[in-house]
């Protein structure tokens, strides 16, 4: 991991077209500004992590999938029952 010290107003470049600027420091919070091409998605890491964990839970756990099937049956019967078809 590369470690750099930067002051507010200073920036780093990642490759030719991604710029990360330190906008300010307030207490224990660092405010960062990002400039990047549109096709680069910038997200908080914990958001990515939580979606990843939810994907794994939904997609890979066999036991959960059996439980899921059972619940789906109940759900589908419920909504179709109410619609009367």
């Amino acid at each position, binding site marked *: 991991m590369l470690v750099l010290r930067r002051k507010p107003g200073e920036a780093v470049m990642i490759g030719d077209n991604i710029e990360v600027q330190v906008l300010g420091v307030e207490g224990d919070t660092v405010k960062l500004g990002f400039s990047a091409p549109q096709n680069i998605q910038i997200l908080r890491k914990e958001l990515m992590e939580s979606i990843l964990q939810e994907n794994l839970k939904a997609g890979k756990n066999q036991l959960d999938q059996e439980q899921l099937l059972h619940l789906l049956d109940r759900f*589908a019967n419920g909504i179709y029952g109410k619609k009367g078809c």
Partner: protein
Amino acid sequence: MNQTTNPEAAIRTVHSRAYGTFHVTGEQIYHFPRGLVGLHEYKDYALIQVEGGPFHLLHALSDELSFILLPAHLAIEDYGFRIDSPTVELLDIRQPDEVNTFLIVNAIDGELFVNLKAPILTAPGSRRGCQFIIDDPSFPIRHPLTRKEGS
């Protein structure tokens, strides 16, 4: 990049331990250029409507990886978000009605939830798909799936 999948591919068979065996046509096969979040190695899926119900199965062609999807409009009313231009390009669409929005269904402790934060978008025209992340804290990852009463 458009050569990565052959849309007229012959019928394939998908074996799923949980859901059984499905025969799929080329029209049911979708290419996800970016995969799903955290699962980037799986890029090709079959999208199959589960018989007799509103649910769809999104099953990886290469592995035992599958997701139950529900069309978003059946799960929640007034679900809307803006798709950014890289995603529009990825899906190769021109109009909003060229894309279908599905929610991933999850079971936790005997209850059903849908992921509103990261829906699955599919474009039948291009047979491409992606998982789109909505960077807005008001969209939860776990939204309780409840039956619509009287609608």
